[in-house]
């Protein structure tokens, strides 16, 4: 704006006024001439006087209001929204098309018959509008009918610049199901073991046994009995496995019992093992018998010990036969086997109806005990089998003895001098006897009624087989004679000794010397013989009926005898030829007769049985076991030769006078 305008206008106004009469508006400023001539400078700018000059805007960066540096100076005086469309644009074309179709509907009726190419050309030159019209006119001509307005061109879809359409599809998701299956847990067991040396060893041993068993099964089995045994064996094992058998502790219980006994009888056991009577040194060749254990069993209290024998295999085991020597009163008998390890109770108990008179244990089969009964029967007990009855027993059929069986020793001797050889036939399980000898005593024929001559047999009471010479044996009789017999001659004897005045209770060959034997009798005497000489070498009078005599196993010159007055006498010929070196009362009560004595083959003990059913074990003191003393510088000779020589020396002393006198 020109600020001069106002002045010019003023001047103009002034001129007009001059021309005319000056008309002054009523509110005109009254200015002085000076003020009227004042020049006001007016500048023409492009600024918009209405535009604000101090717009502030909040700056978030500086967090203050800051003035804008430039303000828009545009002033809009007038604006009008138009509705004009560009012809060439899509919208424009659409509109044209719409308009033209409306117009054509009127034109078709007029130009339907005319076919003008020129007109079409003209129309084309004119504009697209007309081109469209002709196009549609032609189409209309082609159509040639009172048609409705031609189909409009399809409206095209609006697409984005990539011409990309997204398509997606989703498959059906099957609903998930959870299915589980749980099996039964396998039973678990905790197992722990240690691999020791012995566990390994045990496993190997088991394997070995299995192998052996399988080998055995391969062998053909012909014997039916074995099969039966096997069946029985199977049955027994099945039974055992069923029950929680406490009987398996029996072995342990046995050991335990022995230990308990050992504790109780501790001092005795110590004595047995270690005690040597030191006072023997001062006793000047006399010895003593130290009582150790006493074996008794309540059921045998009324029975007398009729036989004792040591087991050849187990040196602490001995068998005792019980019966009665009172021939008016005969009762039942018992066979007990004791061990020194258990003094309170016997190991094996067998009872029998008839009193036992004698017993012997087989040398090779130490589990077989042969027993002779008062009623003439003979039985064999098998210790391995648990039954309390004998495994084999003779009966009237198999030929028993007519009279009490007095001595048993693999062969049996009966009182009427019938020596039977009893053979145990395993397969047939019978006791079969074969006569060995049937002695008839010469010169004792009796006149019986009606003049019959009866030959009475002598009654045998004891016998003994020679240790080395197999066929030779001695038989002692009730009359006091001793017969020397041989197995080869069954009806004749080799020799007879007029030994005693009463029954010969025991005969025994010397274990070392071939020719010497000893005999004892109820006529109070013990006699030692050389079997080639008819008269005895030594005679000892013991003041009482001698029940039994036995040689010691360790010395050829030591023997022991027991008498019915309860004494035991031990003799050692090399020490004292005429007297016993030990005479001792062994049994407690009076009127207790000792019936038998036996030396233990290994230990220095003897066992003595009496007629009250007691068996006492005694230890021999050192004096009784004297071995020949060595001369200085010489070795101590041991062995049977020495023993034989020792006895020979003694006998020679005796023999010469006897030889001179007797023969």
């Amino acid at each position, binding site marked *: 704006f020109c600020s001069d305008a106002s002045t010019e206008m003023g001047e103009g106004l002034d001129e007009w006024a001059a021309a005319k009469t000056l008309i002054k508006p009523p509110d005109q400023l009254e200015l002085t001439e000076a003020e009227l001539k004042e020049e006001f400078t007016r500048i023409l700018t492009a600024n918009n006087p209405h535009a604000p000059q101090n717009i502030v805007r909040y700056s978030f960066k500086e967090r203050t209001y800051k003035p804008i540096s430039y303000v828009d100076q545009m002033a809009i005086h007038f604006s009008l929204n138009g509705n004009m469309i560009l012809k060439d644009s899509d919208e424009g074309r659409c509109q044209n098309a719409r308009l033209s179709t409306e117009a054509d509907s009127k034109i078709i009726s007029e130009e339907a018959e005319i076919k003008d190419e020129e007109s079409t050309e003209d129309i084309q030159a004119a504009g697209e509008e007309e081109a469209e019209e002709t196009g549609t006119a032609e189409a209309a001509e082609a159509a040639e009918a009172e048609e409705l307005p031609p189909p409009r061109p399809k409206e095209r879809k609006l697409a984005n610049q990539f011409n990309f359409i997204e398509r997606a599809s989703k498959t059906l998701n099957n609903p998930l199901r959870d299915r589980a299956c749980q099996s039964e847990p396998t039973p678990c067991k905790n197992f722990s073991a*240690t691999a*020791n*040396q*012995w566990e*390994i*060893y*045990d496993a190997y041993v088991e394997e070995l046994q299995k192998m052996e068993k399988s080998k055995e099964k391969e062998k053909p089995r012909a014997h039916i009995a074995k099969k039966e045994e096997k069946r029985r064996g199977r049955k027994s094992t099945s039974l055992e496995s069923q029950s*929680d058998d*406490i*009987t*398996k*502790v*029996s*072995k*342990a*219980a*046995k*050991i*335990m*019992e022995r*230990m*308990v*006994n050992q*504790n*109780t009888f*501790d001092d005795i056991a110590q004595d047995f093992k270690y005690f040597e009577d030191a006072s023997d040194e001062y006793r000047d060749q006399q010895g003593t018998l130290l009582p150790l254990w006493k074996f008794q069993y309540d059921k045998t209290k009324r029975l007398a010990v009729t036989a004792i024998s040591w087991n050849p295999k187990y040196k602490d085991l001995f068998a005792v036969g019980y019966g009665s020597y009172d021939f008016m009163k005969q009762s039942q008998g018992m066979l007990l086997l004791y061990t020194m390890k258990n003094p*309170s*109770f016997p190991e094996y108990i067998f009872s029998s109806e008839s009193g036992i008179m004698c017993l012997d244990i087989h040398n090779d089969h130490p589990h077989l005990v042969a027993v002779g009964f008062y009623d003439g029967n003979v039985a064999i007990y098998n210790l391995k089998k*648990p039954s309390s009855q004998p495994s084999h027993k003779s009966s009237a059929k198999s030929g028993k003895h007519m009279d009490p069986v007095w001595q048993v020793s693999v062969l049996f001797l009966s009182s009427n001098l019938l020596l039977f050889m009893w053979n145990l036939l395993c397969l047939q399980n019978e006791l079969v006897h074969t006569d060995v000898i049937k002695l008839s005593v010469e010169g004792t024929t009796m006149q019986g009624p009606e003049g019959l001559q009866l030959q009475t047999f002598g009654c045998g009471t004891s016998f003994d087989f020679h240790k080395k010479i197999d066929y030779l044996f001695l038989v002692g009789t009730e009359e006091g004679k001793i017969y020397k017999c041989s197995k080869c001659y069954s009806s004749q004897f080799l020799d007879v000794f007029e030994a005693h005045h009463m029954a010969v209770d025991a005969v025994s060959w010397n274990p070392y010397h071939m020719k010497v034997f000893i005999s004892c009798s109820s006529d109070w005497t013990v006699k030692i013989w050389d079997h080639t000489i008819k008269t005895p070498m030594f005679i000892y009078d013991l003041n009482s009926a001698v029940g039994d005599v036995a040689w010691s196993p360790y010395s050829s010159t030591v023997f022991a005898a027991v008498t019915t007055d309860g004494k035991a006498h031990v003799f050692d010929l090399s020490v004292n030829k005429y007297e016993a070196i030990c005479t001792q009362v062994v049994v407690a009560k009076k009127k207790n007769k000792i019936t038998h004595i036996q030396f233990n083959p290994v230990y220095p003990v003897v066992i003595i049985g009496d007629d009250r059913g007691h068996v006492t074990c005694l230890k021999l003191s050192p004096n009784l076991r004297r071995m020949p003393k060595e001369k200085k510088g010489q070795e101590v000779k041991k062995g049977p030769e020495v023993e034989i020589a020792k006895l020979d020396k003694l006998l020679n002393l005796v023999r010469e006078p006897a030889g001179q006198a007797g023969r």
Partner: protein
Amino acid sequence: MLEETLKRIQAHKGVVGTIVVNAEGIPIRTTLDNSTTVQYAGLLHQLTMKARSTVRDIDPQNDLTFLRIRSKKHEIMVAPDKEYLLIVIQNPCE
């Protein structure tokens, strides 16, 4: 047979008690009261196993036959078996 043996042992002079223990250490027969029995059985079972192991370790062909423990007051004797253990307590006469 076994019953008689056990009875005899129990009746023997000085014997305080008898216990039979099975392979697992459980007492199956006793003449003592329950608590004592259980105690003896458990302890002696272990000891016997150890003793047996010792003996066999040294020589596998060997085996334990008997075990004896002597104390001031009495003597405990243990007899082991294949499956059982027999324990006897005795006052040895001295």
